[in-house]
């Protein structure tokens, strides 16, 4: 009798140790106990077959009806949980994005500090800045010509006259009014490009070895290029013999971007806006050589000497004309 009491007491005490506020690992541990036992037996003499068997058991444990360690119910619950969690997160994210979009104006970007001052691009553009062709082989320059024609389609005199208005030159074409109001665009007719319009010479001079290149200043919403004085363009040999580039003709207006084409009001309201262009007509360039040419914008507020950005206010391309 007494003995029982003693050992009973001892049992009780032992249990106290085990019933201390345990963390839940224990129960979980129990859960996978059998598996562990099995694994332990295999320790040390694990063959490939054992591993495969283990994997199979892991994938589908027919005893416990478990797929990858979870029963169907367990999988259902966990998937449901993640469904709810992710739906909540998706909802919250959508809500935040919606809030973000509400703060944005559809007409003017919140910030324009990264896009200005403007960059420069040229046409023809065939994924590169080396314009190389052989005058006597039309197939070498046709792609350039096609690219130019394609680009200038929007500048067709008829289209321009039909869609856009004539503006007074030499001053900014400021259109006040509600932000959402549609803005008029000023005409920039292809014919203004004169020898480089592709009207008189549909090959833009490529067939004669005196190619035209169109220069375009990147659009920036609200940007008033030149701050009152039109931005002009000049071109020079980038490095090397200055004599390789003897003469360039600029159209229109000696290579300036007229003030009337600014400011740009964004594509939503300024639908028919066409960027003003400056055509560079390389009438006397050294033939049968690679001639590196750099064209720069000049004007108030234009930056053209940043080392990192070789397209900011300037552009460099190579002409290689073979006769």
């Amino acid at each position, binding site marked *: 009798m007494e*003995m029982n009491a003693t*050992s009973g007491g001892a049992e009780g005490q032992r249990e106290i140790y085990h019933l201390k506020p*345990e963390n*839940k690992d224990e*129960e979980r541990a129990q859960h996978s106990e059998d598996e562990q036992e099995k694994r332990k037996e295999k320790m040390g003499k694990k063959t490939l077959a054992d591993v495969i068997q283990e994997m199979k058991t892991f994938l589908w444990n027919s005893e416990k009806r478990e797929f990858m360690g979870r029963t169907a119910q367990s999988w259902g619950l966990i998937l449901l949980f993640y469904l709810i969690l992710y739906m909540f997160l998706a909802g919250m994210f959508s809500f935040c994005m919606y809030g973000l979009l509400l703060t944005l104006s559809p007409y003017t*970007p919140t910030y324009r500090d990264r896009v200005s001052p403007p960059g420069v691009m040229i046409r023809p553009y065939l994924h590169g800045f080396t314009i190389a062709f052989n005058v006597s082989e039309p197939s070498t320059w046709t792609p350039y010509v096609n690219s130019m024609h394609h680009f200038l389609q929007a500048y067709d005199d008829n289209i321009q006259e039909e869609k856009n208005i004539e503006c007074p030159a030499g001053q900014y074409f400021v259109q006040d009014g509600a932000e959402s109001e549609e803005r008029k665009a000023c005409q920039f007719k292809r014919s203004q490009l004169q020898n480089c319009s592709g009207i008189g010479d549909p090959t833009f001079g490529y067939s004669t070895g005196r190619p035209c290149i169109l220069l375009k200043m990147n659009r920036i919403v609200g940007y008033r290029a030149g701050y009152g004085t039109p931005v002009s363009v000049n071109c020079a040999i980038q490095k090397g013999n200055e004599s390789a580039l003897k003469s360039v003709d600029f159209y229109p207006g000696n290579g300036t971007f007229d003030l009337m084409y600014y400011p740009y009001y964004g*594509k939503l309201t300024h639908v028919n806006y066409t960027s003003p262009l400056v055509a560079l007509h390389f009438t006397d360039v050294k033939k049968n050589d690679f001639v590196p040419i750099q064209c720069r914008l000049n004007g108030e507020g234009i930056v053209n000497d940043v080392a990192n950005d070789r397209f900011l206010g300037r552009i460099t391309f190579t002409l290689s004309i073979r006769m």
Partner: protein
Amino acid sequence: MESLSPMFGPDLNFPRGLTSARAAEILARDGPNALTPPKSTPEIIKFLKQMVGGFSILLWVGALLCWIAFGIQVAQGVASAFDNLYLGVVLALVVILTGIFAYYQEAKSTNIMASFSKMIPQQALVIRDGEKREVSAEQLVVGDMVEIKGGDRIPADIRLIFAQGCKVDNSSLTGESEPQSRSCDFTHENPLETKNIAFYSTTCLEGTATGMVINTGDQTIIGRIASLASGVGNEKTPIAIEIEHFVHIVAGVAVSIGVLFFIIAVSMKYKVLDSIIFLIGIIVANVPEGLLATVTVSLSLTAKRMAKKNCLVKNLEAVETLGSTSIICSDKTGTLTQNRMTVAHLWFDDQIYSADTSEEQTTQSFDQSSQSWAALSKVVTLCNRAEFKPGQENVPIMKRVVVGDASETALLKFAEVILGDVMGIRKRNRKLAEIPFNSTNKFQLSIHETEDPNDKRFLMVMKGAPERILERCSTIMINGEEQPLDRERAEAFQTAYMELGGLGERVLGFCHLYLPEDEFPDTYPFDTDSMNFPTSNLCFVGLLSMIDPPRSTVPDAVSKCRSAGIKVIMVTGDHPITAKAIAKSVGIISANSETVEDIAKRLNVPVEQVNKEDARAAVINGMELKDMTTEQLDEILINHSEIVFARTSPQQKLIIVEGCQRQDAVVAVTGDGVNDSPALKKADIGIAMGIAGSDAAKNAADMILLDDNFASIVTGVEEGRLIFDNLKKTIAYTLTKNIAELCPFLIYIIASVPLPIGTITILFIDLGTDIIPSVALAYEKAESDIMNRRPRHKKKDRLVNEQLAVYSYLQIGIIQSIGAFLAYFTVYAEQGWLPNTLLGLRVNWEDDYYNDIEDSYGQEWTRYQRTYLQWTGYTAFFVSITIQQVADLIIRKTRRNSIFQQGLLRNKVIWVGIVSQIAIALILSYGLGSVTALNFTPLRVQYWFVAMPYAILIWVYDEIRKLFIRQYPGSWWDKNMYY
């Protein structure tokens, strides 16, 4: 060893020793008399191991892929090819730097050890060329004649040819602290048992001896044991296994996601080269580059903290091993006990008195008014050869150094505490004759003048084995009166003797006799050889019993172990009764538990009939253990929760350790002797004693207990458990942001948006902003009493379990990614790129020739303008991750308690972490924003706050998680969400 005689030559009595020339010859043949240090891994190998361990391989692969991509791109003439070269170099640098760091940390903790193992060069008195000279012990060779005296360390294995009262302490070899006498007689076949051999590294306690060196260096018994220890393999520490497991998980995730998306990218018609670059990004994003360094730092912080608490950790990983310890096999002497004999009980006037045995005793409070005590104290004081070393007047009595054996020291200190100035008393009672204790007489006797000038009688005092003393007595002193020693009195003596003996104490009897003045006049010539004085019919005065008492902190520490689910097993060379008594007094055997023998005695049945399951405690004798099979030992270890192994040899310790390890336990073993080193090595964590431990033990151990105190182990365990919990938090914290780093790449590949975060930027998070916060988690206090739960199961309670990975990756990590993406979309949208324009934009966006891409407003962007915007996006993404990592850091402070329960301000280092995190982000954005190579830009202030709602969501969500865990323990939620 027995074939020595020819080497002696004829000059046995007057040894001339070797000639210097001969000695030099033998030295050249045998090498110096020193133990070869255990073979250590060459430094370069250790270094290279750090270079390829953990995630390093993965990062090397990343670097290699970078260089391959660079090579291909250079061949193709791609302008941005050098980015890949640099990235490759950066990755390589990361591996090398973290490798150097880990190596340095390892080396630092090893250096602590180096200082320990450095020994003061030992000198030996050797006879060479017929004259005595001092040489360094290393110079000794076989055949040298050496002289040793009390206090010397034996410089080699020596066969004695002359000995006088020589006693040695073989405890470093056998674990037995009892001094053993040494003589020239060959007494046993076994060299370990025979009396005429003294062993290297043991100490000579008293007496003098001359002997011939028979073994030097590694050939000595100690040397052989030491080499045996180095043969026992070093197992991987539990934390090393855990970290490996974790590395496998992360590497598995990285490689499988990497390969999966490589295939997806290729099948989405990406170029193979691009796909390789994606692969690099995915690897870099997935690997927590800084984590292993952080773990090392956390461990070494804990090691430092433990060192302050007297646990010096040799191997950083052992810090955690101690925490997962489930069985401690502890020595008795010195670890559980104070390692000094102390008077525990007295018996006089037919009554037992208890004495104070604590470490700091200054007075004794038992009743000292009886005349018998006065007589007893006189015998104790006078019949004692131990003396304090001079010049220690200011040292507390208990700490003074004494010349003499353990029992005499105990008696001396006991007397000094009560009477004070024992030496003065002895001077006033001049000693006239003395017979020292020897094993045949089993008593010690001395004759003194009395200090009373009027009393011309001599006082003879005697102490010794109680039964021998009693035999010589005819009277007994009761209350100061001599009374005849009748049967009744003798029985009372027997009862007291049995009782004290039953407590495991060493009992001494004391008696005295005043020699009659007329028979022994002033000038009487006492002769100890002929014993011309009475040695019978003496007056019995009393008994004193001594024990090596437990340290006062130990019982508390043992009960802490109990509640922490750690089994404490005592393994001692001592007698079972003593062992059991100490075990009971410290709680290793709890008050209400019984051994099989106890039950048998109580029920009055033979031992065989007792149901073994009823007995919680077991005291196993070394002899029984010898005959046990492995199964029997296992059975004992499983069935009994309170076990004492007594009379065990250190070799048996190894068997016990192996038995415990068969139960899947993490075993900590304490030891000090050389013979313990195999067990220390075999144990999951070997703990050597800093004070009493031999160098071999310290070498074999993972940890050194500076104060030899068992209680320090328990504080170590607490630290070890805490660091395990905190490492979990650190890893959870670190893994979370990996998803936020990975998602950008996945979205980039699938949705073709501009890259939200760059590889370099990711490295700045992993190795910049995240480092200090993740170390700060190591300073987190425990959430609940960690000493109230069971030790973790090696194989079940993983450092990184499924819940931790899933919760970090798929829940918090996803929230973080979403928050960071919100910032990314905000930056782009406010600059003119609405989210819908971004989709599918990648190819044009990254086209170096395309310098007039239209955004949502019709504005045209050059390539560099876009790149700069992309970097702004990186910075915003980076900042968002940082901000959300602050929230992540705060939630990781606890795993189940609310942050408010834990206290936001208790761990100040966390705040240092948060401040550092934000400061680094500020510096990167505003300070280094102009350095293009780093891809950071000065960010608009408001973008710092975009992810804030998600940071708050992380906090709130985790609080809810913890609330449900606390509210519904054992529920589905608890099982799936508690990591």
